């Protein structure tokens, strides 16, 4: 199908149902979009796609944005379901019900979450200690998961858990789809530095999962999970924002709006720091563009991998510099630390419209951005990856290889 034909198909979708129509809900519209094969353009027909090249999806989105005011961001509808759940389901899902599940992912009727991390397994995800024991046609799961975004509103959880403790740690894991409404699943908010709970702790007490909900084979959970994690890292690696966009543009505006009294030296220091950050952000943006170009050329280089570590550290510096621009105003934290689910505050993340929002956002992000260099792979782990996978430097001696998981020291 050519680009023109794809655009044509989008327009025929819009004739059937239009997102700006007040009667058409997101679920309504995206359901029909799925049925037209315009949800995941590269998926097979009947599963929300048309078997096209992956980049055709951006044509679809472009055409949608050109012809409607309302545009549903996947990230807002069902970030984990669409970003990670759908690809895993596509590759490993059983045929029965697969179409319906993909459709409900895309419409947002079923929110998905990812049950990977555990208290004892941070960077070392394969060190998971939650256990599933076979019992007839079911598996009975016990353990604790952490850092699970959206678990409290999710229908399905992608669960990786240990089914065999007697083999080396990567080999004893299996991958399940867990119905989050099952008895024994308990979600507790995990409050962060800001007082918000973006994440949950999920406790699993004798939770039963039918064997048929295992994705991939028994013991292949790590391989299935890797696919998902790769998707997560590239998602967090950061899209290319437009020139002069993102946190740095907020910083520039804060500086221009600043009425703080400062000496010439302080002003000069701030200006140079901000210029450095501006240039670095611009270089990062260009590097992402280069990464896309080399990916298109089928000859991907190291540009993509540098994104996560560079961006997370850059943004931390940007927010800190914002606070320095604010001067003594930084002593005040208007948002308060009440423990709560993210709501209004989260909306600050994209807001950049007026000086008041900018001030609050900078303060919020000073705190929130501390997690940037931890979540989705710590900077330490990312540098190992750059060193080992990109530069080909040798790994460290491993003390946890080729021994049964139960014999590996952990804590």
């Amino acid at each position, binding site marked *: 199908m050519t680009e023109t034909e794809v655009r044509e198909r989008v327009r025929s979708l819009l004739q059937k149902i239009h997102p700006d129509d007040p009667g058409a809900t997101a679920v309504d519209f995206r359901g029909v979009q799925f049925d037209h094969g315009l949800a995941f353009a590269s998926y097979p027909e009947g599963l929300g796609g048309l078997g096209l090249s992956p980049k055709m999806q951006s044509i679809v989105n472009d055409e949608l944005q050109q012809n409607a005011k309302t545009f549903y961001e996947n990230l807002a509808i069902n970030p984990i379901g669409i970003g990670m759940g759908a690809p895993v389901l596509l590759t490993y899902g059983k045929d029965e019900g697969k179409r319906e599940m993909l459709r409900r992912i895309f419409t947002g009727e079923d929110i998905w979450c990812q049950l990977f991390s555990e208290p004892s397994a941070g960077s070392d995800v394969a060190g998971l200690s939650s256990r599933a024991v076979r019992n007839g046609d079911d598996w009975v799961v016990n353990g604790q998961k952490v850092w699970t975004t959206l678990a409290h509103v999710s229908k399905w959880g992608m669960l990786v858990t240990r089914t065999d403790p007697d083999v080396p740690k990567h080999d004893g894991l299996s991958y399940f789809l867990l119905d989050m409404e099952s008895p024994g699943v308990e979600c507790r908010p995990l409050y962060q530095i800001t007082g918000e709970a973006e994440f949950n702790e999920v406790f699993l007490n004798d939770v039963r999962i039918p064997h048929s909900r295992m994705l991939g084979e028994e013991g292949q959970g790590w391989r299935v999970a890797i696919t998902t994690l790769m998707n997560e890292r590239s998602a967090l690696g950061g899209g290319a924002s437009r020139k002069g966009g993102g946190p740095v543009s907020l910083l520039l505006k804060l500086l221009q709006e600043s009425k703080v009294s400062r000496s010439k*030296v302080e002003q000069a220091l701030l200006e140079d720091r901000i210029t450095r950050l501006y240039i670095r952000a611009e270089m990062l943006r260009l590097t992402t563009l280069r990464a896309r170009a080399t990916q298109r050329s089928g000859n991907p280089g190291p540009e993509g991998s540098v994104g996560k570590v560079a961006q997370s550290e850059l943004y931390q510096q940007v927010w800190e510099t914002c606070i320095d621009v604010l001067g003594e105003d930084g002593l*005040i934290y208007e948002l308060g630390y009440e423990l709560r689910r993210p709501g209004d505050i989260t909306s600050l993340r994209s807001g950049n419209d007026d000086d008041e929002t900018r001030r609050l956002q900078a303060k919020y992000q000073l705190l929130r951005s501390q997690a940037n260099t931890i979540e989705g792979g710590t900077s330490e782990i990312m540098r190992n990856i750059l060193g080992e996978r990109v530069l080909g430097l040798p790994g460290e001696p491993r003390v946890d290889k080729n021994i049964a998981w139960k014999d590996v020291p952990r804590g």
Partner: protein
Amino acid sequence: MNFEFSEEHEDLRRTVRQFLENESNETAVREMMAEENGFSREVWARLSEELGLAGLIIEEKHGGAGFGMVELAIVMEEMGRVLLCAPFLSSAVLATSAIELGADASIQADLLPQIASGEKTATLAFSEAGDPWNLGKIEMTAAANGDAFKLSGQKTFVLDGRSANIILVAAKVGSELTLLQVDEDAAGLTRESLPPLDPTRKLATLRFDHTPAKRIASVDVRGALEQSIQRTITALAAEQLGGAQRCLDMAVDYAKSRLQFGRPIGSYQAIKHQCADLLVEVELARSAAYAAAFSADDKGADIAAAMAKSFCSETYAKAAKRNIQIHGGMGFTWEHPAHLYLKRAKASEIIFGSPSLHREKVARSVGISAA
């Protein structure tokens, strides 16, 4: 310079640490920081009566312990270590110094014993919006009203401004800077808590509307207040040192016990070297803080204080951030105390002027930049 702590100094440190480990443990800190006034009168009373800390630097004739800046630094370092929630910096350091150095003798004899006993807490309201740390920019003027004065206007970033019983205000009378005292329940006084970045130290805005005030200094107090702020900064640097050291300790302890890939994360150079770097910074900061305290009465004390404030501020912020990073996901949860240190560190960095402001002072004094 002599850097040696005496046996008495070590005793003081041990006593204070023991008290604080009981009375200012994490549970107590979390409880206090959730309260608007942010401290426990009962603990303050015990801290004053049992340890004499409220009057630590108040002369014995006024009921204090009569200690100097070295003892103050020791105490602040210990308080910083546990994030004590109490009006120590405001009452026992800043306001006490302002009274001792600026107020008339009769006032000293009246107020200092009340402060030293812990019965009352005091604060000094001097910051005004715009250029808050610059005494030269104070614009609030006290209007004469017979023997008394009336104040109108606003002071902000007042340490423990909502809870203080004795409220001192720096304001102008003609071209002179003077000190005035305002009653807690004076007419036209409103005290509004500011939502603080650092919930363990409370700030307020004080509004005055023809508020009656008593002048308590007969001479210009500009120099006295500058010296009071210098003492406060020196004390704060020691507090920052204590916090930074605690962050390093927490990070090292965690790095020893947390296992990933079958071994302690502290055995990886990525973590080990972050800790080693932090150790270097903390030891340099220790020199900065101690030097400022040991030389507080010498020529050049202002520069030693400026160096300490700028160096300890940056070290504490770095230590607090590294501690979070080394703790990984756990480090940015609410339930782990790491974030409390970050908030304290950032707020301490800002209050009384940024590191670069203090470096400029140093630059002028050693001839790096034109005076």
